[in-house]
């Protein structure tokens, strides 16, 4: 884990859409999307079960072990 390696000391592990990801500490939702080069048109987040609208992505920080769900629109009936 991050504590064992100096190079990873600045990283933390989060769970985003069910998968573990190593991201920089102090990372915001907007940073995370930027890191993945994702610029979705309509997206909303659930951070530990709390809804975060897109306007607050830049100010909402992730934390070690948090569960992030990023949700968008897909085709449906």
């Amino acid at each position, binding site marked *: 884990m991050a504590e064992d390696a100096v190079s990873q000391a600045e990283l933390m592990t989060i769970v*985003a*859409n*069910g*998968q573990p990801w190593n991201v920089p500490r102090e990372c915001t939702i907007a940073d995370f999307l930027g890191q*993945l*080069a*994702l610029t*979705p*048109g*309509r*997206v*909303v987040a*659930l951070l530990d079960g709390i*809804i*975060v*609208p*897109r306007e607050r992505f830049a100010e909402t920080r992730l934390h070690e072990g948090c569960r992030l*769900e*990023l*949700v*968008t*629109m*897909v*085709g*449906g*009936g």
Partner: protein
Amino acid sequence: MTEDLLTIGTRTFRSRLLLGTGKYRSFEEMQQSLEASGTEIVTVALRRLDLSRPGQPTLLDYLDTGRYTILPNTAGCKTAEEAIQIAHLAAAMGLPRWVKLEVIPDPDYLLPDPVATLEATRQLVKEGFEVLPYINADPVLARRLQDAGAVTVMPLGSPIGSGQGLLNLPQIQIIIEQARVPVIVDAGIGAPSDAAFAMELGAAACLINTAVAQAGNPVLMARAMKLAIEAGRAAFLAGRIPRRPQAVASSPLTGLVGSPS
């Protein structure tokens, strides 16, 4: 004659065909089908963003949200709580504060849970959502949902995607007869004749997805559905003749050539 408009809650539309956006073979085909159908309301689902494929085209690249009113559904939700959360997410996404409410615990027939649907409707109405509940064709449930503030009821013709047509016909007729809100037949429509029939019976609109998206030519089928909905609606407004057990001649029975009198 005044324009025949469809009013759902606070919104008014000219088209009586609601179209789903799922199961098309390509986004282009979906886009052209929406266009050909004349629809003004399209349904979408909410799902996890695919984090592994940045730059991939998404539904949004092909859906003109300025032109169509987006109706988010709660497909995939098995409980009232899950459905309520999806409605909240859709609203937080900036979508209109209305929802096609689906609470479906049964994976084989995709039949909705009436108790959970009523619970979720009550809660969402309290929160100011306009709720369009998807239900089995149960007239008593339809009334309870209207009492709870649902802006439509959406009985299924037959199971989702089955294309079996209006298997629940007698029940749907009772729902229409008793409804104080628009009745939208949702699910099971397989062909334009099914849609036209629903409209002739007095359904206010139809919601169709698979029958268009999976047709041999979805764009042409979208147009066929548009025409069927329009024809069925016109027939309903016109008033069909009663069914009679015996024939009634269309030509005069008097003045027959060669008759003795």
